């Protein structure tokens, strides 16, 4: 039987020559990078990779794993409608999403032609107690009703401030 010594000690000194403390900064670095353009541009990914001593592929693989990181451009405002179980039971995320879809003329995953608003369906927003819930950028909207949605969207369309 051939036995590669290296297989027995995968973490031998120098293994990978990747600095673990730098690697641990990856998620924070991606978050910072995302704030700049609203999504992770290929250039941003390469920059993060370079700064942390990783390959762009490795960074991309992490970035694409988490739904909170975007690798495609989005609108200035991102509406995230919860499709989790509690929201589903308390009135139905579909209803909320369908309502917004109809109002804005875009389907989930799409951005308005003026590039301002993106609609998304996401997993639980950790606001089950006040379901149904949605988020516009960093601001959470709870106990949603159609009126509440109208109000929020009106403020958006008037160019109001959101997180």
């Amino acid at each position, binding site marked *: 039987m051939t*036995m590669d010594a*290296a*297989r027995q*000690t995968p973490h031998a000194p120098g293994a990978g020559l990747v600095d673990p403390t730098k690697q641990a900064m990856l998620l924070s670095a991606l978050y910072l990078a995302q704030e700049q353009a609203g999504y992770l541009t290929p250039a941003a990914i*390469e920059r993060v990779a370079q700064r942390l001593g*990783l*390959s762009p592929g*490795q960074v991309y*693989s992490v970035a*694409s794993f988490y739904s909170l990181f975007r690798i495609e451009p989005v609108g200035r405002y991102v509406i995230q409608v919860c499709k989790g179980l509690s929201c589903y039971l308390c009135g139905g995320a579909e209803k909320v999403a369908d309502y917004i879809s109809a109002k804005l003329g875009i389907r989930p995953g799409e951005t308005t032609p003026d590039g301002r608003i993106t609609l998304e369906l996401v997993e639980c927003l950790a606001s089950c107690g006040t379901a149904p819930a949605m988020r516009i950028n960093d601001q959470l909207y709870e106990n949603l009703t159609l009126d509440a949605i109208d109000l929020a969207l009106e403020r958006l369309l008037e160019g109001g401030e959101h997180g």
Partner: protein
Amino acid sequence: MPDQVTLTIDDVKVTVPAGTLVVDAAKAAGIDIPVFCSHPKLDPLGACRMCLVEFVGSRGSRLDTACTVRVAEGMAVRTNTEQVKAVREANLGFILINHPLDCPICDKGGECPLQDQTMAYGPGVSQFVEPKRHKNKRYPISDLILLDQERCILCWRCIRYLEEWEDKPQLGLFERGGETMIDTFPGQPVDAKTSGSIIDICPVGALTNRVARFRYRPWELKKTPSVCNHCPVGCNLRLDERVHALRRIVARENMAVNDEWICDKGRFVHQFVDHPERLKKPLVRDAQRGTLREATWDEALDRVVEKLGALVEANGPNTVGGIASPRVSNEAAYLFQKFFRALVGTNNVDFAGGSAVRAWPTGLSAITDIARSDLIVLVGFDPSEAAPLLAVHIKRVVLRKGAKLLIIHPRRIELAKYPGAYLPVLPGNEAALLGELAAAVQASKGVRGQEARGKQAARNPQSPGPGPQYPDVVALLAAAKSPLFIYGPDVARGERGRATVAALLNLATALGQGDKLAYIGAGANEQGVRDMGLLPDTLPGYAPVSDAAVRERLGKLWGLQPPAEAGQTCARMIGGGVKGLFVMGDNLAALPAVAEALRKLDFLVVQDLFLTETAQLADVVLPACSFAEADGTYTNLERRVQRGPQGIRAVGESKADWAILTALAEKWLAAEGRGDRSGVAPAAAPELPDWKRKKRKAKTGPAAKPWNYPTAQSVLEEIGKAVPFYATMRWEALGEGGLQWSARDLRVGVRDSGLSNTQSPTSNPRPGEFLLVSSPLFWDASLFMQYAADQVRQLIPAPFVALNPADLATAKLAEGSQMTLTSPHGSVILTLKADASVQPGTVWIPATLPGLPAETLGGGRGEPISVVVR
């Protein structure tokens, strides 16, 4: 922790080293645990869950992955319970949910672990009625590899190979859950030089070879274990043949040489073997029309005997000579030099890049020594471009054992990113730099060092002032317990090369490591060709031609002794030293200046696979077989003699090099027997009766013995008699792993160790001038690349010159513009590239680009070449 651990697997007691994985322990016990993600050469991961087995403990049994759990004393494992059977079935069911079951059209079908394990452990029926996931079925991850995203079972083997062996994490898993996909970062395809290895280890048909795909079904192939003919590593590989075509090449494990990897040249560059343009018949130049026309073997060989014979008779044997390629087999090289030495009577034999290079005759002590060294010193040698498998071994010892690299090279080569030191050096200044290092090492050793430094300074009168002290580099060298010093042909040519090698030896000796010096050549069989004495001043086995005892011994073996005076070098023969030339397997005339010189010859014979530029100039062209079509042995850079058996039928009427030489020698001898080489009778003429031949021989004194070589093996047998350290190298004895000859069998006199550095250092180039660096590039325009499959041929770069970005800025040159480069030897037009790896003041034009621009400017001559860019 005890060294050995005993455990029980399915009632079999097995004792294995501590730290062994359960899956490997089971293998040792002869028990098969099915795996997908686990691979003996990759770190454990536990991604696929196929290897789940029961671990029986005091509180009952639990399931765990055999590929990640390490053995413990008294451990009890069960692999054959109902529970294990059930989870294997379930797991295969999960894996197959999205697997397309393309088996009938899948390259892997027939040698696919997923097929095999589904048959052995699968549920037998599918419960899945939903539609399968549809993905891209021909997704290119590089120019050479296609990914079928539907077939991928996400085992991470490909990802881990590139990370752990190549240190190029270019593949990753993207997205999440059911969307997960293997992919590359946009615009950054996989470019590792051994990327094809992931095709071999993919447990399904997800990664396919773009050159070989759809050209075979695995069970129809005739598989021949062979060795690679592209570089001197001599990786072990397998030739897969079907209906007389070479369908694909895969790696073959040899732990002493290539582990189980081969590089992408070894794997993908093989279409030259069954290329439609292969020469299928001998050609002779038509006397009337002056063009080449097809001929029979008899006619072609008779013509060679007649013309070469006439030249010998008229002007003496030293007016003809032979130049071979360092790629040819040992058998071909041996017979080639024997033909000239024993039959023609001249030492005019050399190979391209042969006598001009100061090669250390014993190569690398052993490839496995790389894994044992703590410092590798690379002087003018770039393994990543020239011998990729060595780069893989070097990266491994750096990543896994913390070895350091000291790199002395005019260009910041890829390996220079690893810990250690990179010393940029202007071409031609290597000897001076090494001298300074040796002096610094001596100085750091104290009093004795002081003297040596004085000596060094005296030797080096022109060295510009007291050299830098390189404290870090000296510390690095002094700390090394088992260093290796490797140099390549680029720093070993000509007089400067001699000085560099002497300086390197001084440095190694100063560190007490004089036996750790290694030369690594460029040709695939360069070591073997040197061993065979295919050099103008060296007989088989490295004896100088002046050695009377060896000449006498060879005389007994051959019937005639080789001459005592050294023959002409390759350069001299080309430069007008001979009137008749025999070129075996080398396209010398690709360089227009050489073509010009060859036109002046009275008679030129070329033996090759294709109608190369050189063959087009020839009077007789002899069609030779490739390495895949003929038995032969090849000696790699660690003196390992390896078999390359015939794996496919010879193309057309082409013949093995050794067989052509044997047929030629027979005709030569017959003509000699008749006493008239020049007036050879037509082929159909009856052979002279024996008695008449004998009479002639009796008159002419000692005669060459007949060439009786029915097979390559019989040539090897004679080599065993001619080259003492090949005595045990019998075909059968070599086996499938080859045999190394011992460096101790060759007492290498350290003939030049005291040689002083007589070369003045290269001065810094003047503004507007640059020093030429022509170190190799992996994907070049060498002959086999030109006749490779389209997929590979497109990788040949357009000819370019690379400058440091700072130099570009200073000279106000724009990347992508066409520039004229002029040196004392010639002038070329090239596209400009910016490349930070190129040192300021130098231009990098890799060797063997299309049109040979570096060579046209005089690169590869062993002297610094100054180039003006306009």
